[in-house]
């Protein structure tokens, strides 16, 4: 837990000094004013008479040092957040190893005719956009491209972290291949679609880096607000010099600076950038590339999500739930089920075997020979096995098996409908053209999806399910997942209409997509999370890309976006609430020279005006590093209604903001006296 990256710390510290450059700090008005104040105190240290300074030099020097540290802490917060963000981006960059590619001499050559003579092996950087390359088993894809011909399984774990290989094939939505991934089987002919340094990965890394450096619109509002508060306090403090002159009171400039620094929202001003960068980094940690900070904030603000059924709400794999004998013995059916699926490598087939094992079904394994396995074919729409004695065991869709069988047992159709009504898919099993019964396949809900959807709905984010399945299945799954709005027999092209329809009502909408036909909707949606496994068009259109290609992560993104906004709001409240203490501590201390009676407000019984000023400045400076972990991690976030969230955060951070400075300033004051400073 305490594995500190010393090198990173050292770089962050170095950068804290580099960032003292006023040209850089001017982007943050609060810190810029702090810097101007520091310059003033430096002048006062060197030449006190300039502003009629009456305090000793060590006092001015101390104030200068504390102010410099305040700035350094603020810069450190930002640098650290940046470095942590870059660290993740660098880990992506490391994937870009020196590569070679097999460039085709003739673009028109058919895939199965390619021989060694048809390509030349060139260095990765020599391959140009528009070239055609050939890859085969064991090759690394040299550059981003689109599959022109062929189909192959590819290991994309280097990018996605997902060990399961994926299929990439020409045409359709799975034709894009990414630089740095490895071909596991088969061969592909690929058209290179990216120039050197422009590959998807390059651009992603670039995007993350630039995106996290740019202020989001919401942060710009916050900066404006903080700048205007700063100006107000500046006016209040600067004019005090004149008021003091009128009542014959020389208010020391250094003390006025201390008051200004105390009143200004320095805490939030110092942490604003790191809150943003850390929020973006949290997104990157989820293996999601956000193309802008705005997209992340929009995610926190979504009113509705369009969720695909398959892959998002359900696992997309149909699993055998039950064997239902119709007009036969259970044992007989169970055996047939196991036999028919024994060599079936599809997930459905595996699940039938698993269920059979769970039911302790016994078969004579010597009877089952791999060469007798009958593969699924589009023509028969059945698969199965032929036993040595010539018995045909078959399973397939109910219609297909009904066609194949000699007769249809009573109750089969009813049972099949029942299964369909509960969202399942029935398969029929027959032995020698006699139907024994059904296998009920169920599309499984993803683990925890129901709770997540409920959380979202509690937060006021409506979940809408869209599926190409029929009405019955859609309704069943929606009910199971706790979704009240769903669209069945939904075509991907209709997504754009749905997005627009929801946006008409003023709602912000988020969605996921991977296909080319999802692209318009992804672009139109306020948050479009594209899947890395999807087409380039989809990835271009979305404002986020999920490297793991897990659409459920849209929900994660909503949480991160909310947390980012909440952290910013809560620390602002904290910072503003801090002000109250300054009026009771600093105002009496600073003016007590001219108006001794003001000491009556000093109910904290602080030692001396000088000690109060120093204590208050030290608090201001130390609170920044103290809050860095919170800014980086984000405030605690639980899915709750808006009223509860407001109450919790207002009382927690507003309350802490009220009390913390009183206690801290008193403690620092006591400590300073104890140490003999005063």
């Amino acid at each position, binding site marked *: 837990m305490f594995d500190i990256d010393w090198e990173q710390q050292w770089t962050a510290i170095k950068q804290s000094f580099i960032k003292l450059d006023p040209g850089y700090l001017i982007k943050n008005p609060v810190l810029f004013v702090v810097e101007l104040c520091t310059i003033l105190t430096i002048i006062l240290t060197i030449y006190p008479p300039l502003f009629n300074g009456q305090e000793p030099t060590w006092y001015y020097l101390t104030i200068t040092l504390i102010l410099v540290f305040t700035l350094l802490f603020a810069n450190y917060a930002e640098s650290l957040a940046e470095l942590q963000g870059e660290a993740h981006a660098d880990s992506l960059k490391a994937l870009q190893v020196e590569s070679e590619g097999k460039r085709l001499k003739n673009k028109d050559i058919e895939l199965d005719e390619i021989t060694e003579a048809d390509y030349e092996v060139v260095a990765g950087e020599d391959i140009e956009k528009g070239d055609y390359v050939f890859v085969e088993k064991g090759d690394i894809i040299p550059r981003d491209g689109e599959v022109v011909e062929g189909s192959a399984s590819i290991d994309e774990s280097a990018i996605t972290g997902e060990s399961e290989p994926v299929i990439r094939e020409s045409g359709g939505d799975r034709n894009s291949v990414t630089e740095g991934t490895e071909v596991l089987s088969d061969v592909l002919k690929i058209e290179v679609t990216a120039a050197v340094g422009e590959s998807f990965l390059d651009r992603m890394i670039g995007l993350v880096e630039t995106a996290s450096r740019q202020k989001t619109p919401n942060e710009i509002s916050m900066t*404006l607000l903080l700048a205007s508060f700063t100006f107000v306090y500046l006016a209040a403090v600067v004019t005090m010099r004149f008021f003091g002159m009128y009542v014959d009171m020389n208010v020391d400039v250094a003390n006025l600076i201390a008051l200004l620094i105390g009143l200004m929202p320095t805490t939030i001003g110092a942490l604003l950038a790191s809150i943003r960068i850390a929020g973006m980094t949290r997104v990157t940690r989820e293996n999601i590339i956000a193309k802008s900070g705005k997209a992340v904030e929009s995610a926190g603000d979504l*009113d509705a999500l369009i969720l695909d059924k398959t892959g998002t709400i359900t696992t997309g794999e149909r699993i055998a739930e039950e064997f239902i004998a119709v007009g036969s013995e259970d044992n007989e059916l169970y055996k047939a089920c196991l036999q028919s699926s024994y060599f079936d490598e599809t997930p459905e087939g595996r699940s039938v075997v698993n269920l059979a094992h769970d039911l302790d079904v016994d078969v004579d394994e010597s009877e089952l020979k791999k060469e007798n396995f009958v593969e699924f074919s589009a023509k028969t729409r059945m698969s199965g096995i032929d036993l040595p004695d010539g018995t045909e065991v078959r399973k397939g869709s109910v219609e297909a098996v009904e066609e194949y069988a000699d007769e249809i047992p009573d109750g089969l159709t009813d049972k099949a409908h029942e299964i369909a009504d509960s969202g399942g898919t029935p398969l029929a099993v027959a032995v020698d053209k006699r139907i024994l019964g059904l296998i009920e396949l169920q599309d499984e809900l993803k683990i925890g999806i129901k709770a997540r959807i409920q959380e979202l709905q509690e937060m*006021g*984010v409506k979940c809408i399910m869209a599926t190409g399945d029929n009405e019955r299945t859609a309704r069943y799954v929606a009910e199971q997942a706790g979704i009240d709005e769903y669209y069945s027999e939904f075509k991907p092209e209709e997504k754009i209409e749905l997005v627009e329809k929801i946006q008409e009502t003023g709602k912000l909408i988020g969605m996921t997509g991977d296909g080319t036909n999802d692209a318009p909707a992804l672009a139109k949606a306020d948050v479009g999370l594209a899947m890395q496994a999807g087409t380039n068009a989809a990835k271009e259109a979305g404002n986020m890309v999920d490297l793991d290609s897990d659409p459920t992560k849209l929900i994660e993104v909503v949480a991160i976006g909310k947390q980012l906004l909440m952290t910013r709001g809560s620390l602002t409240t904290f910072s503003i609430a801090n002000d109250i203490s300054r009026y009771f501590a600093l105002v009496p201390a600073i003016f007590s020279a001219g108006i001794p009676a003001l000491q*009556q407000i000093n109910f904290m019984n602080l030692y001396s005006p000088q000690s109060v000023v120093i204590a208050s400045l030290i608090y201001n400076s130390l609170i920044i590093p103290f809050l860095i972990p919170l800014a980086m991690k984000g405030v605690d976030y639980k899915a709750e209604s808006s009223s509860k969230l*407001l109450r919790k955060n*207002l009382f927690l951070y507003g309350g802490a903001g009220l009390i913390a400075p009183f206690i801290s300033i008193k403690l620092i004051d006591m400590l300073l006296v104890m140490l003999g400073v005063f």
Partner: protein
Amino acid sequence: MLNILALIVFFVLLFALIYLFGEYIAWIYKDQTKSKSNLPGKLKFIKKLDRPFKFLEAKIFLVLNIDSDQEMNWKQYLFSLLIFNGVLFIFLFLVFRFQNILPLNPLNLEGMSWHQAFHTASTFVSNTNQQHYAGETLSYFSQLFAVGLAMFLSAGTGLALAPAFTRGIQNQENSKLGNFYVNLIKGLIRFLLPVSFVIGVILISQGSPQWFGGEIVVNTIEGVKQAIRVGPVAGIEAIKTLGTNGGGFFAANAAHPFENPTIFSNMLLNLIMLASPMAIIYAFGIWMGKRRHGVILIGALFVIFLGLFWVTAAGEMQPNRAVTMAEENLHINQSLGNMEGKETRFGSLLSSLWAISTTSTTNGAVNSMHNSYNPQGSVGPFLAMAMNCLYNGLGVGLLNLMTYIFICVFIAGLMIGRAPQYLGKRIEWREVKIAALIILLLPVLVLFPTSIAVITEAGKEAIHNPGFTGFSEVLYEMFSAGANNGSGMEGLIDNTMFYNLLNGGAILMGRYLPIFGQLLIAGYLSNKKIRPETEGTLKVENLSFLILFVGVMIIIGGLIFMPALAVGPIAEMLNGGM
């Protein structure tokens, strides 16, 4: 005990009056705000007034050639308002400058100097009514056709802004905010004129004069002749109070027995003074279909109001230290609190209530001498003005409130992890920027002029009280101008070119810059979509939001002035009240 009872009765009556005025004003502008709320059953009878009013309005529109169906966007609305106010300003300036050659001047009063005419015209056109002249130096023509007219028209201008701003939030991607002239005339015909008339009649029944006799000359028991000025006092007093104006017919303002003859008239005027700006905020809730929201907003400010009232009343119930010390050998009974500068018919409690009421709105009428308040007592009015007069002016009070609301919504929205949104409208950087600039304006308009006044000879010449008291007076004057309040702490010789120009400028900026900004915000908002409310959107009707709002109001509004106040009234207070 009797005091507490009187206060309870007062506040019950106040809320009843807010309800009545609020529902009534909401009804007046039902169409103009595209409101869907109706009058509550008990008040349905008001609808009967619609026909005569409509008839009258139609005639006026016809005569003035106003197309009541033609709606304006924010720019056109602002432009109409500025043109209208500009013409009024020039008219006022000329009348005050040349009242000596104008009719209805039986006492042959002089015209004002150009800078005083500038200040007086600025102050009346902007509904501020800061008076650098004694009321007695104005001719009847000036009182009636300049002051009286301006009191109606400036209040009407403010009132006409409320429905336009509401439209900004109510509109679904539509830039039209309504017609300025229609809103102005409807406000005058249906609210300001008839209600003023009723108040005027009640005041006459209490003894306020309403005639043009010039002076009554009487022989006093001491055998000298005394000339007593009279005039159309009751009518001016009515609109002065209803329209958050506050400029008195007499220099003594509402302490004068002709302006405010009895304790009954005092209660009535105090109620009206608070009820009219508060009612607009309640009406806003009605227009938005959220009466509860209006109540919450009034309530939030009322919490601050009560706090300030407590500070001032507690201060004024104390004996006057100066009297105690100066008259050690005399036995002056100070059991009634500090009675210096107060009318015996009102006493210190009701005077405190009035003082906070008049500074919690932009009214600025006074019924006691704020300069004679104990320092603790004077902190209340200072802080009320520091929060830009809490309920602020008729109509503009709603706009002022919204400025703070936007800042709160922005912070609260973030705290719940949402992009900030208020009543379905997103609050983005443009709105926040303008709201922040408006909030910035008051400190600028108060602190910088005060600095100029206390370091220049021209400014210091006018100060006649020493030390902190003198400083307080200057600061008060600047607050009164910048926040468009208009009351005076007095003691300052303010009818000089320096103060006339400085205050006049601050008054105009304090009035028109926020109006400009807030209409711009309304313009931005009107073009946005309304996002429907869900579980996740910010609820502006709960206690947490109320606490945040009060907190922001106090920290961003009031406490910013704490260092300045420390040199003024707070220093006085802690120095033993001298």
